């Protein structure tokens, strides 16, 4: 008698879609095929943050002066640059995983075609998220180089800002894709900036969280805030165990988002 594993036993702990992920890299391969023709946009990925940071350096830095982070005074441009880096990782991931995915899901029927092959809904979801993350990694590297070119880098630990931004990108791409599967029409995308803009403005991006006084706990609810803290730490080269908690928040969001996205694609397309 042979022993057979009961797949249902797994699904109580790990969702079934996770077992059905075999070749998400094929979705990435497709995206690379498409992107090959528009590699020039990568250049803008460098110049956009470069100009942004340059304007802050020229204008705001002198006006604002130094900012206190963990008892240490930091010039304003060096304070704000990591915040902007985290925010740009969020914005890139959200854009890739909402509008782009919605178009492929509802209009070009790309995923319908893919699902007639041995690819699964989990492959599609994870592959698309992975692509958003990969692109984000390139942009984050460009952002880091721009910071370095403008002398805003304080510590060699800044190299860790790229993997941190990859994590931020993964979380937001996963959540963005999961939310996209609930959208009915293009009008629903009006809600996207209504969420990302306050996150961008209020996640201790432009000033320390201490400015919020008694309301600082509210900022904890912003996923971006946890990313900003991590990138800022990498630029200062100051690590503390509390950072693990911030990273865990992002990891949990990524897992939840990817799982919901896979399940929803399955429900929408495999009816």
């Amino acid at each position, binding site marked *: 008698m042979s022993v057979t594993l009961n797949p249902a036993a797994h699904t109580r702990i790990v969702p079934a879609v996770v077992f059905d992920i075999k070749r998400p890299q094929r979705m990435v391969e*497709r995206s690379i095929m498409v992107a090959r023709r528009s590699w020039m946009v990568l250049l803008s990925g460098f110049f956009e943050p470069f100009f942004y940071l340059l304007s802050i350096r020229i204008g705001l830095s002198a006006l604002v002066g130094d900012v206190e982070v963990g008892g240490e005074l930091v010039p304003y441009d060096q304070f704000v640059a990591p915040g902007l880096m985290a925010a740009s990782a969020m914005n890139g991931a959200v854009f890739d995983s909402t509008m782009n995915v919605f178009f492929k899901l509802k209009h*070009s029927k790309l995923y319908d*075609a893919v*699902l*007639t092959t041995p690819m699964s809904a989990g492959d599609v979801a994870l592959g698309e998220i992975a692509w958003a993350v990969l692109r984000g990694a390139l942009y984050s590297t460009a952002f880091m180089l721009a910071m370095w070119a403008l002398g805003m880098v304080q510590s060699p630990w800044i190299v860790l800002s790229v993997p941190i931004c990859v994590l931020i990108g993964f979380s937001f791409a996963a959540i963005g894709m999961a939310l996209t599967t609930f959208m009915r029409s293009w009008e629903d995308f009006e809600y996207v900036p209504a969420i990302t803009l306050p996150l961008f403005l209020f996640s201790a991006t432009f000033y320390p969280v201490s400015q919020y006084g008694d309301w600082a706990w509210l900022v904890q609810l912003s996923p971006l805030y946890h990313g900003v803290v991590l990138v800022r730490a990498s630029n200062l080269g100051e690590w503390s165990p509390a950072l693990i908690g911030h990273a865990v928040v992002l990891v949990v969001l990524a897992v939840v988002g990817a799982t919901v996205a896979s399940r929803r694609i399955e429900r929408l*397309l495999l009816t």
Partner: protein
Amino acid sequence: MDAIASPVVATGLVKQFGDFTAVAGIDVEVAPGEAFGFLGPNGAGKTSTMRMIGCVSPPTSGSLRIFGLDPVADGRQIRARMGVVPQLDQLDNELTVMENLVIYGRYFDISRSDVKAKAKELLEFVQLTEKAGSKVDPLSGGQKRRVSIARSLINDPDLLLLDEPTTGLDPQARHVLWDRLYQLKERGATQVITTHFMDEAEQLCDRLVVMDGGLIVAEGSPQGLIAEHVRREVLEVRFGYGRNIEMMPAVDGVGDRIEVLPDRLLIYTDDGDASLSELHRRQIVPESALVRRSSLEDVFLKLTGRTLVE
């Protein structure tokens, strides 16, 4: 899993969407190498059946086995051996024709060098070699459908699903497509085809089922169905719009059976010319008269009281 076993076996297959029953319990068995058709009007349940066979739509109840496997549990393995041409071309608009085939092959885990060679060969087969570098959008409807067919063959499928393969194509493009499908059949690929064109079903299918309202109303070969359900020939006569029903008693007995449509009377008979002579003998002069061979359209009309294309 016997290799010679039937690629598709369905028993009591049902598909419901909420309260709506798209497929109301059908039994189907497709033999290896056979071209099998689902003929019926829009909404008969053909596409729902196809999607279940294609493992992209779980059956509500009943049993379905593809290559002897369960489409819900073993969907990935089944789809690896299947080629699908969907009703509306779902080509990748961001890629070229060639890239469309290549990436599709990659979804099947075919190595890059193999898939490139295969893609070239298939573009030749569908006569689109010169369009390899073109994007998909500028292609004509017939060309797009040929790309879809080439794409569906990238994994050398044992079973090919074609959902309304020539709907929306001009007559010339249809014939090119039929010719390719016939060649594929000669190579031994099993084909499952849905169509609401009776001429297409007659051209392509060895055997077919007629579907209506989610049920199978008849089954057989195109010729067999015609022989079983209707006479060999049809005399079509027109007396002017609305007058056809009045003429029923006058033409009674001219043929074996009469079917009244708003614009014409269909008189089923073994000898159309003899029936026409009989009309003339009775001094009945229609606006126009035409003798033709009976078709699956007539079978469908007899079985359901409705025409296929409304």
